[in-house]
């Protein structure tokens, strides 16, 4: 029944549901070996249920059908009909992956046969797993006597929770509270928070009593083993407590524990999105590396990028926006008033006073606009945890399949970045993590032989440094072998023997970023890495990010990614060459130095400068665009950092910094390499914005690059 335009709405919501599902399943997975928390199971069930209903409404039969199978198995799980066994959890994890793939395919990718096959074998596995043992005993709820009228409003799940409490000998209470219609949701939330430490709130029943229009009564059905007096004291002044059952619940009849399985030693993580350092050891365990018990773990992972082009925004941030706009309106009113005064004063105004007032308003305007800009940027910000969660899930599985013993540490998930950047980061980060696992961390026996702990460590950390964010992917593995890197680079014709002789270790490491470095199979034999790092570099460069490698033989490798907080509005350095001005994105500027012409050197017919012991190409901006060169007794050199490369850009003058919004160019200028677009400065002057990436490519064109 869905009109075609609704597809994107479906995809957006299904994607949100799936993300919640995936997150909760990751938490469940991390708790293997323990009895799952009822609330968590129910949340997962609800997500699968929503996805089924939603995809059904939009005619997405494939998704709906698989979600249905998943829902059945989760329903059985939350109702205690089956146990959370390893095969079951593996199948649920696989289910989330396949659903993600299917949604991607529904959103535009062509449906693949592989996905279909995986779905079919999953459906079979789910059907097998869901038909576990039946509980089927006399209903304990009949024994304790619950008012049938009350019982009739419970869902099957709520009844199950009641039963579980009765079986454990936990007494059932009816906690009654009357709240104002205005704020009952907050008051109920507070009451729930009070009750939660004492037991389980099974259901919240709105009551038609007392019946006036301003207030509403609720009965909270509450299971608690605490004495009545304690519960009464906790809710004193807010609610009254009465027994729900006619007969008291008999004290705990000992019954076998629900999850009689071997305790899994590897699970310490309770919440993957925890902003603090959360860590859990991952090991291949007993599930083997080639086939999982349920036989459903196979195929490639879906890309981790989210499908939705939307940002969910905290309402508080929108309020801040609205406030600022309100204040802007006040400023406008004041300016109007001033204009009116000026108009009425006619030929004899009070220019000085008037100008002062106008200046005051102008300053207020500037402040508010700054606030507005900040608030809009805030709206675009999302926590990195969104991507880290997904990466953590993937890593758990990859580690399990790799047969290596790896401790994966994640921290800094609370650091926020522009939504666009966060999305673009997931693939490069996945690449780096995969490399760390495949080529960085050694097999346990080799680690032991080297006197290292058998368990390797891979770290993913993020921290905010001013208006930049630094993300680090590190391992304590073998480190990169520069001899091999040199050899490979020469074999591939990426660098000459002579050229590599002159390179320092740091520069040698940078060779792994060259396209073509890692196209052959034997690259995986490198004790370091090198799988498709040029792709990582390209992705990062698009985000105005920098990437640095720090690798020590035998000790490990660290990739440090430095990213701007946002790309929407950037701060730019305005420079001048002759009578022309250009804007250089400040993200790419690492420092500015002043160089005398005598300090320039020439290597292989190219000018270079020495900055802090590092030799950098020296590029005269005037020459790049064929402008007249001024004769300077010193050059201002803007040191540009781009991905892993650095170079110095010589300009005639520095004019200051401005916030700019880059607008694309049309017409003939569009084809000029090295220009990203144009922007208008505060004085309404249009200037060209440099595209440092393209500039660098231009620069390298005539000869083969080495670092």
């Amino acid at each position, binding site marked *: 029944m869905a009109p075609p335009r609704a597809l994107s709405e479906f995809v957006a919501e299904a994607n949100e549901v799936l993300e919640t599902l995936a997150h909760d399943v990751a938490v469940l997975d991390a708790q293997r070996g323990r009895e799952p928390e009822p609330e968590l199971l129910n949340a997962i069930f609800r997500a699968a249920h929503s996805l089924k209903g939603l995809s059904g409404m939009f005619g997405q039969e494939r998704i709906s059908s698989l979600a249905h199978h998943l829902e059945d198995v989760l329903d059985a799980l939350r109702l205690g009909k089956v146990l959370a066994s390893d095969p079951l959890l593996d199948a649920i994890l696989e289910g989330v992956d396949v659903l993600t793939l299917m949604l991607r395919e529904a959103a535009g990718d062509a449906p693949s046969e592989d996905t279909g096959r995986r779905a079919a074998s999953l459906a079979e596995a789910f059907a097998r797993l869901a038909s576990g043992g039946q509980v089927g005993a006399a209903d304990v709820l009949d024994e304790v006597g619950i008012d049938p009228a009350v019982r*009739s*409003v*419970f869902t099957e799940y709520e009844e199950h929770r009641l039963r579980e409490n009765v079986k454990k000998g936990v007494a059932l209470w009816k906690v009654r509270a009357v709240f104002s*219609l205005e704020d009952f949701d907050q008051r109920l939330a507070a009451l729930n928070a009070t009750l939660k430490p004492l037991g389980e709130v099974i259901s919240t029943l*709105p009551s038609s009593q007392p019946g006036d229009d301003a207030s509403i009564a609720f009965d909270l059905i509450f299971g608690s083993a605490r004495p009545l007096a304690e519960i009464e004291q906790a809710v004193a002044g807010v609610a009254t407590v009465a027994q729900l059952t006619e007969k008291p619940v008999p004290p705990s009849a000992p019954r076998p524990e629900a999850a009689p399985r071997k305790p899994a030693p590897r699970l310490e993580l309770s919440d993957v999105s925890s902003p603090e350092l959360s860590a859990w050891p991952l090991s291949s365990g007993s599930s083997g590396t080639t086939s999982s018990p349920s036989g459903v773990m196979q195929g490639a992972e879906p890309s981790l990028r989210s499908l939705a082009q939307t940002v969910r925004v905290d309402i508080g941030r929108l309020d801040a926006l609205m406030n600022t706009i309100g204040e802007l309106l006040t400023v406008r009113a004041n300016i109007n008033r001033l204009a009116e005064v000026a108009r009425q004063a006619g030929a004899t105004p009070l220019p000085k006073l008037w100008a002062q007032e106008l200046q005051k308003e102008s300053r207020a305007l500037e402040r508010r606009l700054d606030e507005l800009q900040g608030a809009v940027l805030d709206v675009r910000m999302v926590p990195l945890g969104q991507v880290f969660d997904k990466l953590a899930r993937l890593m758990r599985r990859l580690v399990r399949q790799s047969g290596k013993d790896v401790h994966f540490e994640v921290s800094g998930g609370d650091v926020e970045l522009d939504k666009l950047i966060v999305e673009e980061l997931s693939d490069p980060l996945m690449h780096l993590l995969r490399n760390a696992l495949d080529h960085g961390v050694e097999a346990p026996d080799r680690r032991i032989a080297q006197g290292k702990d058998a368990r390797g460590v891979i770290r993913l950390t993020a921290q905010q440094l001013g208006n930049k964010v630094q993300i680090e992917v590190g391992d304590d593995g073998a480190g990169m072998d520069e001899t091999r890197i040199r050899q490979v680079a020469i074999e591939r014709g990426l660098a000459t023997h002579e050229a590599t002789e002159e390179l320092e270790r740091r520069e040698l490491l940078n060779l792994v970023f060259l396209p073509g470095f890692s196209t052959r199979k034997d690259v995986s034999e490198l004790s370091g890495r090198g799988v498709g790092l040029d792709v990582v570099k390209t992705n990062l460069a698009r985000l105005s990010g920098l990437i640095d490698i720090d690798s020590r033989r035998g000790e490990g490798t660290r990739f440090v990614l430095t990213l701007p907080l946002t790309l929407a509005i950037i701060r730019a350095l305005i420079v001048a060459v002759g009578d022309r001005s250009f804007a250089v994105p400040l993200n790419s500027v690492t420092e500015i130095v002043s160089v005398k012409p005598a300090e320039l050197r020439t290597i292989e017919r190219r000018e270079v400068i020495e900055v802090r012991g590092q030799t950098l190409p020296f590029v005269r901006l005037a020459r790049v665009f064929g402008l007249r060169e001024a004769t300077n007794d010193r050059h201002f050199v803007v040191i540009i950092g781009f991905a892993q490369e650095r170079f110095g850009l010589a300009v005639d003058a520095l004019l200051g910094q401005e916030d700019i919004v880059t607008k694309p160019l049309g017409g003939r200028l569009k084809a000029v390499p090295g220009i990203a677009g144009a922007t208008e400065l505060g004085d309404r002057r249009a200037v060209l914005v440099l595209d440092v990436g393209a500039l660098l490519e231009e620069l390298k064109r005539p000869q083969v690059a080495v670092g």
Partner: protein
Amino acid sequence: MLIVEDSRATRELLAAAVEIVEGVEVYTAVSGFEALKVLPRHRFSLIITDINMPDINGLELINFVKKNPNYRDVPLFIVTTEGREQDRDRGLQLGAAEYLVKPFQSELLTALVRRYLKL
């Protein structure tokens, strides 16, 4: 009329299906709590509610409506998904007039709305 449904996309579909009926003014609530808040403020001619919702479930909402003298006579439809027959049966016992199983044809919903509103 009031549509209570926590899924945004489904809510829009439901609303679109009933809005083509002339003379129907549609209000939507994203949760049971929101429905409780909006109920005293308008006289609704019909309520359509989902069963599986995060705060209070649809059955509890039906019970609340049917026990309350102010709303008792408002016809109420439940929207369920396949496989939850027990919840559906309880909804009907509590006084729901009709049920729809997702996925359903929008024409069916439109026809039911017309019949109950005598339009």
